[in-house]
């Protein structure tokens, strides 16, 4: 990987403590890693280790108890323009048309200009949603809905996409094809992506680099450059190195 590319997101010795009335939980400690421009990073970890917490920190929705989370060198703030968040389910609003859903971030960010709107809708057009703009989400298949959710995320032109297990709500078959789909769109739009998942094979099939988190308190225990180049997920799954990486990551998760 070219070291001259800019760092988009940086976790610097982050510590996070959760407070509830029942007590306090140390969710993350000494969490350090960075994401360079154009990279696709997958984060895996044992369940309950705080993968979603990591994304909330990256999006500025949570403030670290100690350490820093920086976006382009500056402390990340809530609702940062640079961030596009994509959740497990598509979370499309059923009372809005596909078009209405796609322009939602523009409305929220109050830059719903004709130009931005056109750009977002052109994106929808480009990725096969053109004929569905006036449809409601419940008229779309699961795969199409997730694609609409991705276009919505891209509409506000974020620098980095935060993906929280975006395929796990889909059935297996749809999942493989949507995974390909999302991968291709993110690559084509030259976006940086940070994906968290509990699915090792999913991580291997999309990422340039895989980070392995420890059980709580979470910290990065290993990082691997996969070196698959630009091979798409379905090709990677056929590659001999796929299962080799699977073994490595499997062992690291189960220490």
């Amino acid at each position: 990987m070219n070291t001259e590319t800019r760092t988009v997101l940086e976790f610097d010795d982050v510590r996070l403590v959760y407070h509830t009335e029942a007590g306090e939980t140390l969710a993350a400690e000494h969490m350090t890693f960075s994401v360079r421009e154009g990279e696709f990073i997958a984060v895996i970890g044992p369940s309950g280790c705080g993968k979603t917490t990591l994304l909330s920190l990256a999006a500025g929705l949570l403030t670290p108890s100690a350490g820093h989370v920086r976006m382009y060198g500056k402390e990340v703030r809530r609702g940062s323009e640079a961030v596009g968040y994509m959740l497990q389910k598509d979370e499309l609003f059923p009372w809005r048309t596909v078009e209405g859903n796609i322009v939602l971030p523009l409305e929220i960010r109050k830059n719903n200009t004709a130009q931005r709107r056109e750009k977002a809708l052109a994106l929808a057009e480009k990725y096969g949603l053109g004929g569905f703009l006036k449809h409601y989400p419940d008229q779309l298949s699961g795969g199409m809905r997730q694609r609409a959710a991705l276009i919505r995320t891209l509409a506000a032109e974020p620098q980095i996409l935060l993906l929280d297990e975006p395929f796990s709500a889909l059935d297996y078959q749809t999942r493989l094809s949507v995974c390909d789909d999302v991968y291709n769109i993110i690559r084509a739009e030259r976006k940086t992506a940070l994906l968290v998942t509990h699915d090792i094979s999913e991580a291997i099939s999309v990422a340039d680099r895989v980070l392995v988190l420890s059980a709580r308190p979470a910290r990065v225990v290993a990082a691997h450059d996969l070196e698959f180049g630009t091979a798409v997920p379905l090709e990677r799954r056929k590659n001999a190195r796929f299962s080799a990486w699977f073994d490595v990551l499997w062992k690291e998760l189960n220490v």
Partner: protein
Amino acid sequence: MKKKTTACSPEHALYLKKRRRESIVVQIARFSLLLAILGIWELVAGLKLVDPFIISSPSRIAVQIASLAADGSLFYHIGVTLWETLAGFAVAVVLGTAVALLLWWSERARRVLEPYIVVLNSLPKIALGPVIIIWFGTGSAAIVFITVLIGIIVAILQMLGGFMATDKNKILLLESMGASKRQILQKLVIPSALPQFVGMLKICVGMAWIGSIMGEYIVSKAGLGYLIVYGGQVFKLDLVMAATVILCVLAAGMYALVALAEKFLVKK
């Protein structure tokens, strides 16, 4: 969903035909049931199996309604009750929704006011009758107030439930887009609580009728509730029954209007 106009197979046509026939049967059965009840009632009264003075009869009710209509008092009483019900309903719905919004907005307000709402909810509002008469007199104002009182708590609880049930992940999504609390309210919380709003309207229709009729029982000089009480006191069962029948028709009509509103409001 939009309607699909696709050519259908013979099996499907048969299926549709069966469904249509079934719904016709249901309609006929409904209507026959009403006719049977009215018929038996008329017969029992006509043959004096039970004294019609006690149970009245459909024909006597019809005559009673006609005579009320002839001297114009029918529409006067309907007007009074309808006004009280609608005014109470409107105020309860608007104020109740507004209070629920406030409680959604401020967790502290919610926690402070919770015990008060719980107590007001379980308190039989009629217990406040004497206080209300002293404060508002014996006119329509007192009745509207009772109606509001009965409806508003339900409205608040229903709407607060709806607002609080907003999908947490959708809120997270909007927050990640940098949405303010007001934007979350406008773009997400209110539209997603629309079904609860319609549900609340339906409940409040019922509550408003309870409020207005109960109010008329305790204080009024006019209205359908007044006619019922007055009829009971002078032992004119025809009048009691006539007013009750009209009340049934009005309540059904108002419910139908709300159901119609539901079609417009909740498309999805």
